[in-house]
């Protein structure tokens, strides 16, 4: 029995199979509409996360399965003090597969070690969020036709953003990738990541302003710059506009560049950009459902 805790749990070959399946589902969803009939997905969400939970639920419903679960710790037995180990043993009696989100890092791993059913980490604190990374990879592969051979700009909060760290770790397994990190000094990508890239001989650049690198990018991965990450308001006011993508900045970009964002977006991408064909962040949410469908089928060994 397999679980998914970390985006690197699957080899590059296994990911290729998973993404192939996701693309088959995309091409012919009706063919898979009954694949999980009689199966149940438990969504154990110890903290609220509307999009991820609904994406998992939509994925299971699209496959003809059923869903049950809870959407915050207060409405679960955790409020009475039940351990994750005990909860998953009980859930194993009720469902065939479980997606778990928990504010404590490593909680889904503890669940997996005690579980009788496959467990998917749907986000554990600031640690991992593997299905977001799989979503990002599937979006890139589907719309670019390949994973590798491109320059990707990662923009915004690169210090605390777990989606960014996971994506970097996942992308370095592919050939010929160049990173451009676009962030204020306060939110630079951590040293251990740049050290690792240097050790592996993977090219990267760090820049302060998005305009400085826009024409070079094949992909632009936007994240939110949060006010509370800055030491003072003055710096925030001075820098925030550097990280807002609008039509003017986009005018310098390649015609086939893709703009991704893990969402929710606040103001870092102007609404005027949404209609640009390069803006694929809403498509990305759709790919999130396809990749979760493929994952459920794979972990239930129904693929």
């Amino acid at each position, binding site marked *: 029995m397999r679980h998914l805790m970390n985006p690197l749990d699957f080899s590059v070959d296994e990911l290729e199979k998973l993404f192939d399946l996701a693309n088959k589902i995309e091409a012919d969803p009706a063919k898979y509409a009954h694949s999980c009939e009689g199966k149940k997905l438990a969504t154990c969400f110890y903290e609220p996360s509307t999009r991820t939970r609904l994406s998992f639920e939509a994925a299971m419903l699209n496959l003809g399965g059923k869903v049950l679960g809870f959407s915050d710790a207060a409405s679960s037995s955790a409020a009475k003090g039940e*351990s*994750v180990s005990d909860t998953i043993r009980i859930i194993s009696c009720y469902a065939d597969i479980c997606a778990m989100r928990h504010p*404590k890092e490593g909680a889904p791993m*503890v669940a997996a070690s005690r579980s009788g059913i496959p467990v998917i980490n749907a986000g*554990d604190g600031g640690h991992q969020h593997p299905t977001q990374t799989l979503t990002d990879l599937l979006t890139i592969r589907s719309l670019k036709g390949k994973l590798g051979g491109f320059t990707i700009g990662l923009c915004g909060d690169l210090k605390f953003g777990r989606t960014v760290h996971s994506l970097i770790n996942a992308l370095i397994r592919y050939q010929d990738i160049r990173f451009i990190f676009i962030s204020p000094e306060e939110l630079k990508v951590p040293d251990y990541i740049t050290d690792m890239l240097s050790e592996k001989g993977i090219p990267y650049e760090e820049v302060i302003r998005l305009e400085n690198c826009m024409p070079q990018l094949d992909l632009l991965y936007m994240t939110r710059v949060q006010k509370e990450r800055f030491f003072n308001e003055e710096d925030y006011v001075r820098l925030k506009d550097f990280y807002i993508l609008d039509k003017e900045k986009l005018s310098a970009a390649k015609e086939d560049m893709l703009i991704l964002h893990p969402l929710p977006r606040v103001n870092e991408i102007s609404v005027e950009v949404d209609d640009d064909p390069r803006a694929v962040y809403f498509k990305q949410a759709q790919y999130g459902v396809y990749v979760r469908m493929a994952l459920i089928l794979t972990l239930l060994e129904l693929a």
Partner: protein
Amino acid sequence: MLNVGKIEEGFVLDHIEAGKSLEIYHHLKLDKLDCTVAIIKNARSNKMGKKDILKVECDINTLNLDILAFIDHNITVNVIKDGEIVDKKELVLPREIHNVIKCKNPRCITSIEQELPHIFVLADEEKEIYRCKYCEEKAGTSSTW
């Protein structure tokens, strides 16, 4: 001067930092073994001033000493057979350590889950870096503390 007799077969753990012998006694789970153990505290040492020594009389294949590499690199491990030192054992960093150190990350599941062992996995042998099995919080060996 206190005299402790020599052992026939087992280990003499020398150059233990003074005061640390009981901690090592517990980490090696010597309390659970039915063997003779001498704990010598604050012995005079030319090199260290004061040191602790542990003498353990046991079958040399029964005791896993790898954890010593994590706790203190400087401990000398003399292997004794037929009353003589036959080898000085080289310590190798263990792949995993259980319940020796606690994860300091307040967001780690170990901070709330009952009776969950604190497990650290060797992530970088050269830099002597361990990471929490659950949250990947970094921890070094005693030489990096």
